[in-house]
C-alpha cells in the first residue's frame, strides 16, 4: 500500500468490458517511495468515492484486482461470482481509503534505524499538504 494524492480522473468509453462502471483516478504517489514511483503517476480504480485533491492510500498488484467484483462497492459487477472475486479484471491498483491524518512518531523517524535522511522532512511537508476534512 502506498500514500498518494488524487490529481485527476480518467474517462474512457471504449474499454475492456470487465472495467464496466469502474471510476478511474490519476494518482500522484508521494515521491518518497521507490524510485519507480518518484515522478510518475498511476491510474487506480476507485470504490470509495475519492475526489481530486484527496490524499489516499492505494493498494497495488494482485490484491487490488481480486477485491473487485466482491460486492460492497460500485465495482464492475459483471464478473462477480464467476471464478471468484474479480480475478480476471485488468486492474493492478485500487484506492483503499481516503486519508484523514498522518501522524509521524518523531523519535522513531529520526532515530538511526528510522526513516533515514530526507524522509522525515518529506513526510512533514506532505503532512502540511493534508487538508483537514
Amino acid at each position, binding site marked *: *500500500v502506498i500514500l498518494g494524492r488524487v490529481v485527476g480522473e480518467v474517462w474512457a468509453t471504449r474499454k475492456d468490458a470487465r472495467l464496466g462502471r469502474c471510476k478511474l483516478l490519476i494518482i500522484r504517489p508521494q515521491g518518497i517511495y521507490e524510485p519507480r514511483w518518484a515522478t510518475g503517476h498511476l491510474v487506480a480504480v476507485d470504490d470509495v468515492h475519492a475526489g481530486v485533491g484527496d490524499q489516499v492510500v492505494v493498494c497495488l498488484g494482485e490484491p487490488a484486482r481480486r477485491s473487485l467484483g466482491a460486492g460492497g462497492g460500485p465495482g464492475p459487477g459483471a464478473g462477480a461470482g464467476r471464478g471468484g472475486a474479480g480475478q480476471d479484471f485488468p486492474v493492478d491498483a485500487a484506492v483503499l481509503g481516503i486519508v484523514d491524518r498522518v501522524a509521524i512518531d518523531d523519535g522513531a523517524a529520526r532515530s538511526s534505524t528510522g526513516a533515514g535522511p530526507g524522509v522525515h522532512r518529506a513526510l512533514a511537508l506532505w503532512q502540511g499538504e493534508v487538508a483537514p476534512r
Partner: protein
Amino acid sequence: MMRGTIIGQVWATRQAAGLTGRKLVLVAERDADRAPTGRLVVAIDTLDARGGDDVTVAFGSGARNVIKPGPDNRELLCDAAVAALVEGAE
C-alpha cells in the same frame, strides 16, 4: 517479506469494504545492516505495533493471510500487512 521500523500511523475513515477500522501504519524499510533504505510503505497492522517497533511486513497474498487466513480472503483489498514484531535478530 520486508524488514522495517514503524515511524507513524495513517488514519483513513473512508475505507474499502472489509478493511473498515483496520489500523494503518507507516513503515520505513531497512536493509540487512539495519540502515534505512528510504522506501516507505503503508501496512495494515493487526499486532498493535507502536512507533519505533522493529517489524516484518508481508506483501501480496501473504498480507491477506495475516488479516484473514483461509481461501475466502481473496476479496480483501490489502497488499501489505505487519506480520511480526521483531525482538531480536542475528
